[in-house]
């Protein structure tokens, strides 16, 4: 928990907190906050600022009966608790998996993926990369956030271990290679299709959705 080196930026954290980050990225942020004490503290400090401002804020009169209605509502049953984390997957990832283990699809070269969500605002998937294996070199048209859940990978930007997030903008053209040891499992969100240079002709990309 303490040796996470690559964090989310203030801008991305603020967009997440405001609810304006597309779903795929917000899951990566929530998963990183589940693993990173430092960013969790940044997040909670912002809530503490919000709380201090709330205590000092103006008030609006409630309608008559609002308090009685509130007290009467306390006996309603509590909603079901949120899913918990399991294995290497923190709670927000388990929620995307709907509480089940991943169902991997083979992509060739021992690389597997499961798409968790995909729509016009972006896509979110889990990737499984065997040790020493390279993910084909790819550039980005938009933003990509990649969070390591198990094992590690390295590319031109550095080495990434469990809890680390790589933030790649469209200028980065990189070739991540999974580190030795356990297979690298990561959670990757993009807001645009990736451009693979070698692995698949670009016409097939919409079909394989990678």
């Amino acid at each position, binding site marked *: 928990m303490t040796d996470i080196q690559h964090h989310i930026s203030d801008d991305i954290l*603020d967009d*997440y*907190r*405001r*609810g*304006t980050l597309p*779903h795929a990225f*917000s*899951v990566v*942020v*929530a*998963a990183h*906050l*589940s693993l990173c004490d*430092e960013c*969790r*503290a*940044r*997040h*909670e*400090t*912002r*809530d*503490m*600022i*919000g*709380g*201090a*401002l*709330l*205590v*000092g*804020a*103006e*008030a*609006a*009169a*409630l*309608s008559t009966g*609002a*308090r009685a*209605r*509130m*007290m009467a*509502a*306390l006996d*309603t049953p*509590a*909603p079901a608790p*949120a899913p*918990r*984390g399991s294995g290497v997957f*923190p*709670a*927000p990832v388990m*929620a*995307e998996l709907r509480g089940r283990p991943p169902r991997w699809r083979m992509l060739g070269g021992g690389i597997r993926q499961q798409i968790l969500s995909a729509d016009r605002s972006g896509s979110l998937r889990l990737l499984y990369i065997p040790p020493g294996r390279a993910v084909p070199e790819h550039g980005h048209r938009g933003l990509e956030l990649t969070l390591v859940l198990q094992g590690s990978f390295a590319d031109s930007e550095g080495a990434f271990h469990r809890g680390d997030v790589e933030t790649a903008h469209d200028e980065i053209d990189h070739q991540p290679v999974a580190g030795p040891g356990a297979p690298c499992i990561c959670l990757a969100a993009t807001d645009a299709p990736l451009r693979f240079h070698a692995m698949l002709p670009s016409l097939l990309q919409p079909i394989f959705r990678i």
Partner: protein
Amino acid sequence: MTNPVTKEISALSRDLIAVRDRRDREAFGRLFDHFAPRLKAMLLRGGLRDGSAEDVVQDVMLAVWHKAAQFDPHRADAAGWIYAIARNRRIDLARRKPLSQPEEMPDLPSLEPDAGQVLSLQQEARELAAALSRLAPEQADALRAAYFDDLPQSRISEMTGLPLGTIKSRIRLGLDRLRHELRSIAP
């Protein structure tokens, strides 16, 4: 600190702990009396109509009652914790999918309470409130827009007529100043 606001913060956290540990309805009533009108004003400022603002206030306060077991005074004070619930509720009203949430921290009964850490966190919350009141007005306004009204910087820029760079630097300066005063809680 004898500022009434700062004294109130720890009383509110005590009430929330009473709700958590004893399902204390009187303590909950005090939290409702304090927070519900402020939450309503916050939601009205965010553009909700009177009736729906009250419905959301009821949702938020009911979630406070139901989730009180997760309140951890090692990590949060009552005001920040309740604010976070309200922030999430307000966001989910506007989103197609509910906002993905980080993992809850481990169940409290499994942890030995650390009085020193609880006291220092609550002290930090009080110092934060005091430090906010000492900020230059333009920094305090920028932080309020960004971290209380949750407005995007582009919107703050539109509303104030100030360039985006000015908004960014006021938020940054405000946060830096708070960090400087509260080195122990902010990275």
